[in-house]
């Protein structure tokens, strides 16, 4: 009896006597999240790895076992939850995107453009070299641009990191997510149309950007208005923020924009309209953490559903290596004059290795637009995402510790000599 049939038998057995008010899937998801939370805690406590590794491991195990709670390609509530999780993270990341920094230090923007361009063309080149057709290689190369701000922000939280490498990696990750979302969502709409002229190629990008900008602007204005009479440290403001992002995500997806992109733009606009420090991260706390944990579990469940074969593994490995090299090279080449040292540039490149929800959402769009090509894209994209969700988180942790920007020593908490005293 294999694991899948065992789970099916158990589910059948339970459904006989268990009559939960919200349905069996709710029970399953709740237990899954409970297991993920415990796993994340144990991984951090006994292995010294970021919690996101624990979440991903649980999701991957359940995904490999054939859990049917999240079927690829994502639709309905699971797709919405993924978009919402990404939107919450990107809204915050957008609020941390310091536009005035680029005015004072344009080399940071050059670093971003260079690493994104090198990543795209590097991955495209290696995939073409390995014989993948352009309509498949192009979406994968686009996905490879993304350095997951979600994973990075979780790692930053776990390591209590702050400093030049942490800030720059987060800024570059947010910027490349912006490029990949705008281009990825637009190109997914064109996958079966093969546009000829430049205008035909740019038009969908403008549409995705325009729609996302409108929703983002409405979100920013609504929050700006709320902040006129509500305290940013109030719990009510945090709830209002989450509810507005959720409404914005649902609306954007409906009108044809990108929900995460709208949230990112909303964050940038709100910070521009309201330069006061953002104090609600601490208030968002558990609600946002639950949402992002759900997102990581969902990503790994889905990614584990890929077909794992040796040829696929070698392509995935090639993509990962070229992507990492391109990111480090891009940041390093534009480093002179950017205010960072060579060592910092190297570790910024490494810290940008995680892939996660955004890449999955882009892959999901391509799969929905063209099921045939989608299958081929999925074959390479999903294993890459799963591997780089885990390995990327570990590499980002190594980077943060290597430059001494963590406030906690890199030792498993259980064996740490310094006690974390709680009241």
């Amino acid at each position, binding site marked *: 009896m294999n694991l899948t049939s065992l789970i099916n038998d158990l589910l059948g057995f339970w459904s006989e006597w268990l009559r939960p008010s919200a349905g069996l899937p709710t029970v399953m998801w709740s237990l899954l999240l409970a297991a993920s939370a415990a796993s994340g805690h144990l991984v951090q406590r006994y292995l010294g790895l970021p919690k996101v590794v624990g979440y991903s491991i649980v999701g991957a195990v359940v995904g490999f076992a054939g859990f049917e709670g999240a079927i690829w390609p994502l639709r309905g509530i699971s797709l919405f939850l993924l978009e919402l999780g990404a939107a919450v993270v990107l809204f915050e990341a957008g609020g941390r995107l310091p536009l005035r920094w680029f005015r*004072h230090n344009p080399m940071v923007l050059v670093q971003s453009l260079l690493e994104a361009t090198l990543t795209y063309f590097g991955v495209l080149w290696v995939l073409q070299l390995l014989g993948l057709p352009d309509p498949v290689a192009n979406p994968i190369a686009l996905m490879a641009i993304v350095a997951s701000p979600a994973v990075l922000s979780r790692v930053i939280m776990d390591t209590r990191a702050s400093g030049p490498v942490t800030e720059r990696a987060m800024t570059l990750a947010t910027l490349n997510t912006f490029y990949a979302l705008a281009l990825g969502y637009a190109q997914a709409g064109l996958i079966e149309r093969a546009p000829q002229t430049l205008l035909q190629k740019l038009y969908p990008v403008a549409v995705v950007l325009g729609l996302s900008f409108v929703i983002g602007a409405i979100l920013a204005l609504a929050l700006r208005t709320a902040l006129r009479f509500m305290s940013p440290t109030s719990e009510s403001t945090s709830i209002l923020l989450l509810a507005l992002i959720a409404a914005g995500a649902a609306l954007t997806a409906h009108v044809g924009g990108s929900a995460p992109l709208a949230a990112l733009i909303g964050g940038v606009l709100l910070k521009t309209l309201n330069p006061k*420090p953002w*104090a609600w991260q601490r208030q968002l706390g558990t609600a946002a953490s639950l949402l992002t944990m759900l997102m990581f579990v969902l990503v790994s469940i889905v990614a584990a559903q890929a077909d794992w074969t040796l040829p696929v593994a070698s392509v995935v490995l090639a993509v990962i290596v070229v992507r990492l090299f391109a990111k480090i090279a891009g940041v390093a080449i534009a480093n002179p004059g950017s205010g960072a040292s060579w060592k910092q540039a190297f570790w910024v490149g490494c810290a940008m290795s995680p892939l996660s929800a955004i890449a999955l959402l882009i892959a999901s769009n391509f799969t929905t637009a063209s099921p045939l090509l989608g299958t081929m894209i999925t074959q390479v994209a999903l294993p890459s995402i799963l591997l780089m969700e885990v390995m990327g988180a570990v590499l980002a942790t190594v980077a943060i510790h290597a430059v001494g920007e963590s406030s906690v020593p890199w030792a498993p908490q259980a064996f740490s000599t310094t006690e974390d005293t709680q009241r």
Partner: protein
Amino acid sequence: MTASMGFPDSASTPLVPNTTDSDDFRSAALPADPASRVVKLEPFNRSEALSLGVELELQLVNTHDYDLAPYAEDMLRLMAQTPLPGSVVPEMTSSMIEISTDICHSAQDVITQLSPIREALIKNADKLNIAVVGGGTHAFQQWHERRIYDKPRFRELSELYGYLSKQFTIFGQHVHIGCPDADAALLMLHRMSRYIPHFIALSASSPFVQGQDTQFDSARLNSVFAFPLSGRAPFTLSWKEFEAYFERMTRTGVVRSMKDFYWDIRPKPEFGTIEIRVFDTPLTVERAAALAGYVQSLAAWFLQEQPFEPTEDDYLVYTYNRFQACRFGLDAVYVDPASGQHMPLRDHILMTMTQLEWHSEALNATQALGELRTSVEANRNDARWLREKQGKERLLAEVVRQAALRFRGAA
């Protein structure tokens, strides 16, 4: 970036040392035999009387939530690329830096040197996407999150003092004043001690600690009290006696150099100065220069008029006056050490400013003292400014953001 002008005996040494508060800790192992521990005090070098030097410890904060940010190394790397007067050095924790002037002769000189340093700081901070802030404390930083600056000496000190070294993430202004000779330096030191409450109240800018209003205008000095050998210097008016005291102290093994004393005012024999260390770092370099002008005018008054003789009994009310100034700022009560008369500190400050008018004019410090006088008459210091901002904004991070704007002259 060293200074030599006006200090022929210390030509290769800066007036303002390339050391920091944290260098004042003691860490090395001691010889077992008390007699072999004795260290002779170095001679008091010559300096130009009434010459000035100013050090300012500054905060580096991020521009997102305005908490302290560990950017000292990056800031020092960028600052080293710009030719500037004075020096910029690291401090105990990685979110602090210290800037200092070369030898100055007036408050005007001080601001002339501090202004380009401030401009360079702002430019480099913008490049790193951080902000530079004055003030005696960061309003809401958590001491346990601080990281010791990666330097062997700081690591040793951290091991010795444990959490105290991280709690020492406080920011002060030190003013050096040149003295004609060693005995004159001690005389000036003890005369100046009567004005410690004035300095505290005028510079107070540390009402918030760890996210709370402490009810003190200067809570920073409470952190200094945790260290041994803080407070007042012993009452000796001759350098010979002071040398004997120093040798007795070194015999005990508690002290190995002058750096082990972190008194409110201490002699600095290698520079031929006394160093006043009770000022909180003001929110602007202009106020820092004005405070230096006030000290210089007082010193000129002491040297030229010999207005009073300090006595040991001056110190009977020293701690009380100091506490009053820390707690209530300009609203403190001042007990005159000579007469025992109680009066508002604000009035006593204004009275001294009137006494100093002639000297400040001669030292080109009229404008500096005028600015200080106006603020005292309006009952305003930086602590009050910070409290007013918090009263309006109800968000300490926003107060820090506005303080950063104030440092760059935009608020």
